[in-house]
């Protein structure tokens, strides 16, 4: 049990220097210093990323792929360099397995629309969990509706942990896809996806993992995990908005039909027949968010520069500190008490509505998120309208925790 901020572990990086790297953290809202605790929604950007974007647009900008002039070659190199960086970041076997998308949501939709459409038929089943984000529910629902397939949902415990036995029992000979979240955006639960993937594979079923909340908090090795698809977004990884990644095993991606048609994803086009480009470009139609792709490399380099192990160690301690301090507040209940957690703390204050608490916290400069967090089925499972969610990144401090706790106490007093 922590009683003072001094007991939080000193991170394996210079926290003050790191905070100085993030301009957005040093502003006031309503005359008070901003305490940014909404990282699960999106992360702030280091100066290096911001400057990379500005430099790219100032001096290096051109359209990529198939250009013959200097700028276009440079831009292409820079964009493709990100692909290399991403592949190394998640330990993909090759850059052919890294598809750029707009974000996690588009990545999942891509798989549902291509792999899903081709392999899921009438009477087939798709397994998801009760804690999924809407982006990992709705694409599968749309597919099920189209094909006459059905969704099977893995139940969770009150602590917010997957019921592994129930998961195992869900498998039938009609199960065609498993779609699971790595880290819950609402509960903070880290799911045992390596075990879940192994089990799915024993049944011959591929697994898509929603890694949106994972990649900024813990090292991800897609080969070690054995997942078939892994999705994440750049903006939650301290990178620009509008860029995301779909990792897919080459063998699967090869067999999938294209998603969007257009330029770049083709090899030859005639009105009689069109042939498609090789991986990964087969899935990248049209001009992408070039600058965001390039900025993503800078963001990943920044994160790997700090070291994900350092980040995980510090964040783990900070989360423990925050949890302990919050639990000291009378009437405060944490929603999501899994043994393995990262990133988010969802909580409720007895006798208050999350919206009221969040609004008052905002006036104190404390930025949290309230509501269903795009996990309405999860809220229904707990019988609650929503939660207040504080979510952390490596640039948050014990002082941020103190500010949060103080503001929550004041909100409680105002709403009593």
């Amino acid at each position: 049990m922590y009683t003072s901020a001094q007991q939080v572990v000193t991170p394996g990086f210079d926290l003050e220097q790191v905070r100085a790297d993030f301009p957005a953290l040093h502003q006031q809202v309503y005359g008070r210093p901003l305490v940014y605790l909404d990282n699960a929604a999106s992360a702030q950007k280091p100066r290096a990323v911001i400057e990379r974007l500005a430099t790219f647009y100032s001096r290096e900008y051109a359209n990529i792929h198939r250009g013959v002039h200097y700028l276009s070659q440079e831009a292409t190199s820079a964009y493709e360099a990100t692909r290399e960086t991403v592949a190394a970041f998640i330990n993909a076997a090759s850059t052919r397995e890294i598809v750029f998308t707009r974000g996690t949501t588009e990545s999942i939709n891509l798989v549902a629309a291509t792999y899903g459409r081709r392999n899921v038929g009438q009477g087939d089943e798709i397994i998801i969990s009760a804690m999924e984000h809407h982006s990992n529910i709705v694409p599968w629902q749309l597919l099920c509706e189209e094909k006459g397939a059905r969704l099977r949902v893995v139940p969770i415990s009150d602590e917010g942990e997957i019921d592994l036995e129930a998961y195992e029992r869900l498998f039938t000979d009609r199960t065609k896809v498993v779609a699971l979240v790595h880290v819950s955006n609402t509960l903070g639960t880290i799911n045992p996806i390596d075990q879940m993937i192994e089990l799915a594979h024993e049944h011959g079923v591929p697994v898509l993992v929603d890694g949106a909340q994972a990649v900024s908090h813990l090292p991800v090795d897609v080969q070690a995990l054995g997942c078939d698809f892994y999705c994440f977004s750049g903006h939650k990884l301290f990178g620009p908005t509008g860029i995301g990644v779909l990792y897919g095993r080459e063998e699967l991606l090869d067999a999938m039909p294209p998603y969007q048609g257009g330029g770049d994803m083709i090899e030859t086009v005639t009105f009689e027949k069109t042939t498609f480009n090789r991986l990964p470009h087969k899935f990248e139609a049209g001009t992408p968010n070039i600058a965001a792709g390039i900025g993503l490399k800078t963001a990943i380099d920044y994160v790997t520069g700090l070291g994900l192990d350092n980040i995980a160690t510090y964040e783990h301690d900070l989360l423990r500190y925050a949890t302990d301090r919050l639990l000291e507040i009378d009437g405060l209940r944490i929603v999501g008490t899994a043994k393995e957690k990262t990133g988010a703390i969802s909580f409720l204050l007895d006798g208050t509505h999350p919206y009221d608490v969040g609004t008052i916290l905002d006036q104190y400069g404390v930025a949290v998120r309230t509501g269903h967090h795009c996990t309405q089925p999860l809220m229904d499972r707990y019988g609650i309208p929503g939660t207040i969610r504080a979510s952390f990144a490596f640039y948050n401090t014990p002082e941020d925790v103190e500010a949060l706790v103080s503001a929550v106490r004041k909100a409680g007093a105002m709403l009593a």
Partner: protein
Amino acid sequence: MHTLMSNNATLADRQEAIVEEFSAFDDWMGRYEYLIELGKSLPPLDEKYKTEENKIHGCQSQVWVHARYEDGRVFFDADSDALITKGLAALLVRVLSGLTPHEIATAELSFINRIGLREHLSPTRKNGLNGMILQMKRFALEHSQAVKN
């Protein structure tokens, strides 16, 4: 703390009274506390009026507005499970309830900008404020048509 207004008090008077009450507070905290207090003093809505029709959409909390037309005037009752929203509902009810359909439909709610909660009362906030106003005006509009016919 606030004075009760008879149905005959004009829209302008009602808004002035509210602005004056809020001006007693120097900072946002006092104003929010007062708003919360107003919310707490709003009588709860009868469960039978918490229908889908009366529910305001687009808010994080649940908000209901019940309207009834009587003798040429429209009366409102409202409720919410969030206190700040309830406070906003209480203000709207005070300002609009008991007026004629025409007065409600054409009401310019200047008090919103004048009570020092402007950054809170913006349309992007999912507090149901715009939704409530729309619902109240829509009901009033329906009844001003009915009266004309």
